[in-house]
């Protein structure tokens, strides 16, 4: 003890304390390495330097965007063995999209939900769906009374009506406001989009959304190769990565090219209407003028572009 003491009092490092220190350092390093061992299984195939350095969608030059599209297309092809037709589709001039949903017609068949999943390359496992259909008792539009998990051999049920909910593409979107890195924004045609390559995955937008429209990739999305929809665009349905947010974008890769959203096309009862709010002759504009439309949670001031209505001759009986 006393010898040790004297050694220690000398300035500098004694042999004994050096060995002790070295042993401690080696042990510490070994422990840290062991703790980090799970990282060996980390799939780095889609983490490239170019991807890391890629700039925000709005900041990319056309050349950079082309390069990014080519790189993403290659990654998709490598993983899913499908050559995607990946492109960037810009908003059309003089267009502001709106959606109107006829609650008298909807029969709750959830065909829209599945068409959306197929069109937009949503993860099948874990399951991600943009549209949620609520089975509501007649006489109320209180969503807390709605059943999300209704499972009937046949729909519709005479005592209920059905209310599909998806992103409302708000004109005053709380999700856009809260995003710390501007990874989500409102486009000129009113569609709220996400740059999946910019999102940091903080999920603040998901907490802010009053319509529960956003979905987070808690795990690596899984899509069977044969189910991939190769018709894709940068801001809409290209496959997403683990750890980023996604949501309905009014099928912008279709609608900006004059087609209709997948959920509308599949609807067997014609409950869904879509079009340009700025065009007075569009069906949506006519509905807004002639029907008693309403929006969900008007009091939160989000100004949705997604409207609901009942037929005027709707007296609680389905025809």
């Amino acid at each position, binding site marked *: 003890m006393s010898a040790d003491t004297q050694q220690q009092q000398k300035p500098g490092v004694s042999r004994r304390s050096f060995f002790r220190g070295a042993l401690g350092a080696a042990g510490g390093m070994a422990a840290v390495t062991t703790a980090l061992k799970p990282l060996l299984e980390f799939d780095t195939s889609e983490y490239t330097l170019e991807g890391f350095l890629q700039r925000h969608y709005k900041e990319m030059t056309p050349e950079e965007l082309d390069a990014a599209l080519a790189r993403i297309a290659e990654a998709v092809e490598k993983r899913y063995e499908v050559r995607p037709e990946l492109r960037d589709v810009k908003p059309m001039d003089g267009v502001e999209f709106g959606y109107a949903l006829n609650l008298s017609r909807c029969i709750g068949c959830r065909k829209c939900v599945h068409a959306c999943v197929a069109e937009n390359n949503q993860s099948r496992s874990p399951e991600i769906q943009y549209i949620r259909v609520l089975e509501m008792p007649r006489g109320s539009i209180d969503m*807390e009374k709605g059943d999300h998990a209704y499972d009937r051999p046949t729909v519709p049920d005479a005592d209920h009506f059905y209310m599909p909910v998806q992103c409302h593409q708000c004109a005053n979107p709380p999700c856009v*406001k809260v995003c*710390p890195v501007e990874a989500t924004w409102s486009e000129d045609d009113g569609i709220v989009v996400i740059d999946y390559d910019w999102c940091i995955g*903080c999920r603040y937008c998901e907490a802010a959304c009053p319509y529960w429209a956003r979905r987070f990739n*808690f795990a690596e999305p899984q899509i069977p190769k044969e189910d991939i929809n190769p018709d894709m665009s940068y801001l809409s349905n290209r496959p997403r990565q683990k750890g980023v947010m996604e949501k309905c974008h009014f099928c912008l890769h279709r609608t900006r090219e004059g087609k209709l959203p997948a959920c509308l096309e599949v609807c067997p009862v014609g409950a869904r209407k879509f079009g340009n709010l700025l065009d007075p002759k569009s069906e949506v504009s006519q509905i807004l003028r002639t029907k008693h439309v309403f929006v969900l949670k008007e009091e939160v001031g989000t100004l949705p572009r997604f409207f609901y209505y009942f037929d005027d001759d709707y007296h609680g009986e389905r025809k």
Partner: protein
Amino acid sequence: MRDYGRFLWRCARISFVGDWRYHTWMLTLSVIALLGLNAYAKQLVDGLATTGMTDQVSWGLYIANFTFLVGMAAAAVMLVIPVYVYGKHEMHELVVFAELLAVAAIVMCLLFVTVDLGRPDRFLHLFQRFNFPISMLTWDVVVLNGYLLLNMHICGYLIYCAYKKRKPGKWFYYPFVIVAIGWAISIHTVTAFLYVGLGGRPFWNSAIIVPKFLASAFAAGPAFIMLTLQLIRYFTDHKVPQGAIRLLQNIVTVALTIDLFLLGSELFTEFYADSHHISSLVYLWFGKDGYHALVPWIWTSVAMSVTALLIFYLPTKRSMFFVNIACVLLIVGIWIEKGMGLVIPAFVPSPLGEIVEYVPTLNETLVCFGIWAFGLMIYTIFVRITIPVLSGQLTHDRIYHTEVATDSATHPPTEGSLS
């Protein structure tokens, strides 16, 4: 500059020196921190699916702990104000311990936010497109990092001056202390704004949450500092005047009273009006549609806070034994209230009225424990370094040996010194 390097080197070395209790404590914390690191590595590989969070309850234990710790960091100001505003100079040296606690707490906060990110590799995006001043999260990034720098500067400067046996230059730290007072309030205010600004979550969308955040923080934080100071007094020869502890006790009493008063006001307003907005409150306090995972937590939390309050008002307030029990009770009570009582219920039911309960997984719990262990570890090291420096045992011209048995030859013998 070389001097400063040597100072850091000596600080690093001394943090490995201590008696068996110190080594056991640090080893235990290291093991827990490594378990947390291991759990986080798994989370990085498999994604946030390793947590109990879902699209319905999209924030959980990580954000809850983050919120609580912002309060702890802000609470340092409750020692700064008495000393620098009201001139209680006998407590001057203790301020450093509170500021160091703030540093450790902010480090933990930043870690908790980081582990909550889905894509932590993209954090640099914050520097490229920073949605300031629109997003409250960017405000939080600014105030938290600013507060961290302020406190690191103040503590680092004062400790280095003591090490150099130099009188601290007032202008080098005093203005920063004053700024830090306002800044401390701001970190917790901004963190509250994070929640109350969301119109789509009626449970959060209430102005009273902001003052309630501050009140609960100024109860839990000083209570934690009270316990820390007593531990320092017990394990080291550093002087901690009893008056300082009693002053903190008064602060805690007042803050806890205000906190519970605000809670009562909130509950009355919501339940008496009985509007549709109370779904989350009903779920939290009584359960809803057969779901009641949070009910035992919130009642435990309130029972703990009320018991602590009673101890502070009854004659038991004179016994340190009871006061310490009260401190532990209210710290745990407020921790529960921030997590199970504030963050999680806002997600249940979901905005579409769906009830999905949140149950943390073992993996995310380990990550939380790991961060806490890491935070306690760095705080222990801070204190371990600070005490010999402040008492003049470790200075630029004197090497400090704790393991030296002949310590008494160079220093007056003291009871329960670190050695």
